[in-house]
């Protein structure tokens, strides 16, 4: 392999990218837009659950509860009436995701027995929204109960108490963006690497310019290296830009050893590019390259723990996901950025990524050779 020939072709590739507005947009603008939009959109943190209150008690307590609900910042009271039918209608039409029923005699039983039952109907068709809304509703009820107990039941003997304090490590403000940014960065790097690699080789194939390159003195490996090198650099630049945007726009913590992250990204990009190269050897046209790349990435990203935690997956899926390089890099990226891990903590996933890089690159190169023969 001659470095000069490789660099000459790599320079041609860079010029291609820089001259072509579309590719440049794909590489520089799209990731930033994605980061900005996705990070805002990708949140399970709930505000303003639309809530309908069926108040059949009409007492001071029940009115107090409605006020508390509205003031908690997690609920938007869309209507209050004594009619259970109106609540049901709200659920069916989707106007309300939660119906809170305050039955007649609530205040009386609360004062007399110290207990009252409140009905919560949740639209579980909304998934996570329902689960989270349920938690907030329960805490509003608990707060209200404590306050009422303090007002009325001062004469009861105090029960032994445990003062529980909760501390949320690594993300004390429970900010979803701090969780998503490291994951989305991985998705960006993966997209740039795999899609562009598959596309650029398939494009030369389709347009017939690969044939022309074949009559140059370039060896096959030099050709591959020259095509992938600029993309590798672009991927690293994208990661840097993404990190800067994450830090400036979302104040995402960069707690750990960034050298570990960039080293892992350097290795991981080889994996992503090799997968793209491999895809380009099994397709004939750009269209096919896009679709196959899209399909492969779709499966990889969904099974990587990027959107939903790996721990929540079925046990056998968790085992399968170990064969997914994205999983290791997503985990490593979160370990470093959010949990503040250093080299020692991420040695295992880093080693695994190195193995992935060696294997995928070998497979891709063998495949390129075979196709050329």
């Amino acid at each position: 392999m001659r470095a000069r020939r490789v660099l000459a072709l790599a320079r041609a590739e860079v010029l291609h990218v820089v001259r072509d507005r579309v590719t440049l947009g794909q590489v520089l603008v799209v990731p930033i837009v994605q980061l900005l939009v996705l990070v805002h959109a990708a949140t399970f943190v709930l505000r303003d659950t639309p809530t309908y209150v069926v108040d059949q008690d009409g007492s001071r307590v029940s009115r107090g509860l409605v006020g508390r609900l509205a003031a908690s910042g997690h609920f938007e009271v869309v209507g209050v009436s004594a009619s259970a039918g109106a609540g049901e209608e709200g659920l069916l039409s989707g106007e309300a995701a939660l119906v809170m029923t305050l039955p007649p005699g609530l205040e009386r039983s609360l004062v007399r027995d110290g207990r009252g039952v409140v009905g919560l109907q949740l639209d579980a068709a909304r998934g996570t929204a329902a689960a989270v809304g349920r938690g907030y509703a329960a805490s509003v009820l608990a707060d209200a109960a404590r306050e009422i107990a303090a007002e009325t039941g001062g004469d009861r003997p105090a029960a032994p108490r445990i003062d529980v304090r909760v501390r949320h490590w690594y993300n004390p403000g429970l900010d979803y963006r701090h969780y998503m940014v490291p994951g989305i960065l991985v998705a960006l790097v993966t997209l740039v690497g795999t899609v562009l690699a598959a596309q650029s080789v398939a494009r030369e194939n389709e347009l017939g310019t690969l044939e022309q390159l074949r009559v140059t003195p370039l060896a096959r490996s030099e050709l591959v290296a020259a095509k992938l090198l600029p993309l590798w650099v672009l991927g690293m630049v994208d990661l840097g830009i993404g990190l800067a945007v994450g830090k400036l726009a979302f104040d995402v913590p960069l707690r750990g050893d960034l050298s570990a992250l960039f080293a892992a990204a350097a290795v991981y990009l080889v994996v992503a590019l090799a997968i793209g190269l491999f895809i380009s050897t099994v397709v004939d046209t750009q269209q096919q390259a896009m679709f196959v790349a899209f399909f492969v990435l779709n499966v990889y990203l969904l099974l990587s723990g990027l959107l939903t935690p790996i721990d929540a997956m079925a046990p056998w899926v968790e085992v399968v996901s170990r064969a997914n390089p994205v999983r290791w890099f997503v985990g490593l990226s979160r370990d470093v950025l959010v949990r503040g891990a250093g080299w020692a903590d991420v040695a295992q996933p880093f080693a695994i990524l190195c193995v992935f890089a060696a294997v995928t690159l070998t497979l891709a190169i063998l495949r390129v050779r075979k196709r050329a023969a």
Partner: protein
Amino acid sequence: MRTLRALVWKESLHVLRDRRTLGVLLLLPVFQVLIFGYAIRTDVGTVRLAVVDPAPDAATRALAARFAGSPTFAPVATLPVPDGLDRLFRRGAADAALVFAPGFGERLGRGEPADLLVVTDATEPNTGATVASYALAVVQGFERERAAAAGGVGGGAAGLVPRVRLRFNPTAESKNLFVPGLVAFVLTIVSSLMTAITLAREKEVGTMETLLVSPLRPGQIVAGKVAPYLLIGFAGAVGVIALAQLVFDVPLRGSLVLLLGEVLLFLLVSLALGVLISARAKSQRVAMTGALLGTMLPTLMLSGFIFPVESMPRPLQWLSHAVPAKWFIAVARGVLLKGVGLDHLWQETLVLAAMALVLLALAARSFRPRLE
């Protein structure tokens, strides 16, 4: 009409001949259903718990045992000091920790408030919050039991007891929720992305000019090129719904006819979007980028498919109103899970119909394959 039929036939042959693309188009829905059915869960699994107990006594041991006995928590380590916690968390060996203050049992015995610290790994904030609420529930159960054992009325402190009913999806399984979003996703891929790329390809390769000299009018060319994808899209949607029913037992409570009608409506919207994008695109890559940004991402991220729209900042919520998938998903959820009909869904349907009309009109106008 006969010429149009010939064009549709030719386009169908094109689609059938390209095995790889066809394979992806057919496999994609199947894979998606399997992945979402088996792999994507949003509920919290077993929580690995580390216990930090500097001075073990009867009370701390009893509470720790109560955690071990709960189905949610699995103790993985007991430490005398909290120093090693960070390491455990970073290695992913523990998800939460229980930190007792020294003299916990003694203070509790004297009736004084005893301190307990619950630490969660809140890297994923929802998991952190959920784990904390599980832990609180275990501690409250422990307190109630002690109060009952002490024999006082103290255990019956004023309480508002929520009686929770999960409507429409009583088991709260995420597998019941993904079907509407998946149908929208598959339809978007097949109709918007494929249509945009195919039409752009014809332009890029230069064969659009060949079609121009044929006796077909521009509208017919578009209709002919789009027809096969209408079929594939519809088949994909039916496939997703059938697979989800057969393999995962996802309910279909409302009318199938209504659902398929809405699928068709959404399909028309997506196709029109695909044509619109291709009209503006000069090359396949531009078309692909446009389709990804203009249709795929909004369908995935701004439709309520994975992330609830209510959680987003206001500007994104407004933006989501312009995303067709948002309306389709609301309708499909209504029909599949709530079993409601047009009387509850007419607003969403109307929005979809209006979108279809406007976009089809725009697409018909925009597509003028001209020689340049």
